[in-house]
């Protein structure tokens, strides 16, 4: 009986949750961040990049 329960548990853990794409993006599956936050991060990075480029032109 015990073994049967264990087998069932294993099977449950291995099954792919509904809606997941099993062949893609395995490592990002646990990401807990919204698109809006990500957009803000990208915007900040872009501003930093442009600032560094502008600084480079000014300081040369």
């Amino acid at each position, binding site marked *: 009986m015990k073994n049967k329960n264990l087998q069932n548990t294993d099977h449950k853990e291995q099954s792919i949750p509904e809606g997941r794409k099993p062949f893609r993006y395995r*490592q990002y599956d646990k990401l807990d961040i919204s698109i809006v936050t990500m*957009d803000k991060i990208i915007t900040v990075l872009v501003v930093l990049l442009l600032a560094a480029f502008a600084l480079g*032109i000014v300081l*040369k």
Partner: protein
Amino acid sequence: MEIEKRVGNKNIGEFLINNALYFILGAILVTVVSIKPSFATLTNFINIIKQASTKGILALGCAGLIVIAGTDLSIGRVLGLSAAVTASLVQSVTYASRMYPQMTQQINLLIPLFLSIAIAVIFSLINGFGVAKLHLHAFIVSLGTQLIAYGLTCIYIEMQPSGSAQALSTFNDNFLNKAAGSFSIGNVKIPYVMIYFLICAFIMHIIWNKTKLGKDMFAVGGNPEAAKVSGVNVVKTIMLVYLVAGIYYGLAAFLEAARVQSVGANTGINYELDAISACVIGGVSFSGGVGTVIGVVIGSIILQAINYSLYFLSINAYLQYIIKGLIIIIAVAIDVRKYLEKR
């Protein structure tokens, strides 16, 4: 009507964000041209592609490893070792300080080419075995082989009859003409290395898109467990991807020796960073299972164009590092966003 307009705006917005990197890099290049119009010449364009070619071949090899959610830190040092062996075998027989004074006739160029490829393949297969069979992290196993390759390069270069560690140089004309030569179309000189790069990209495109190895590679990169239960031989696939990468590294080393014309212990240093950066900029996802060959080619050229333009504008060397670092982080951030969008 209102909803359609909103959907349209959303699609445009997402298109802009998903391709933000290309727009920014394009804007940077436009700025460079507007500041220094002499930048926009055919000679500069060919120089950029010429310089991008050998690193592009490295990136093509490395891209497969990133698609299977791996990486390779040994690329630069393995290239250095292969290039050193190539250089020692193609030195001019009239050069007094050559590595092998007993060599009185030029050897067939296929010998150094095959040796270069064989060395790179051996190192690549060691990495592949560590990842596929021993389940080591690609980062750590390639860090180990990187140090081994560097040690071997230093020992090999110091084996010169003079006992010095001077760079191997003065190559024979046949080698230089074939590996670093060019042909003319009208007034334009097209370097052979550009053609080699295009051929390598075409072959890799076929491997990725038309062969079982390519399909298996994307399956393993996306989810190794799912690929395994679907009947994919994961170990064999990983080993083959590393084998192909090794062949590309060896070829790149052969061409790089001709391009730089002087191979020392520091040849190839940090090339892995350029190769990995080109892949990331080209849209190869570090999460595995995503990437295109054309993306890698474009990534290599864009990265080199940025390097060249920053140098052309005489921008402070330290700021150049910061700019390149930010470009890589933005590329990864956009990759994460693409995932979030699809989830």
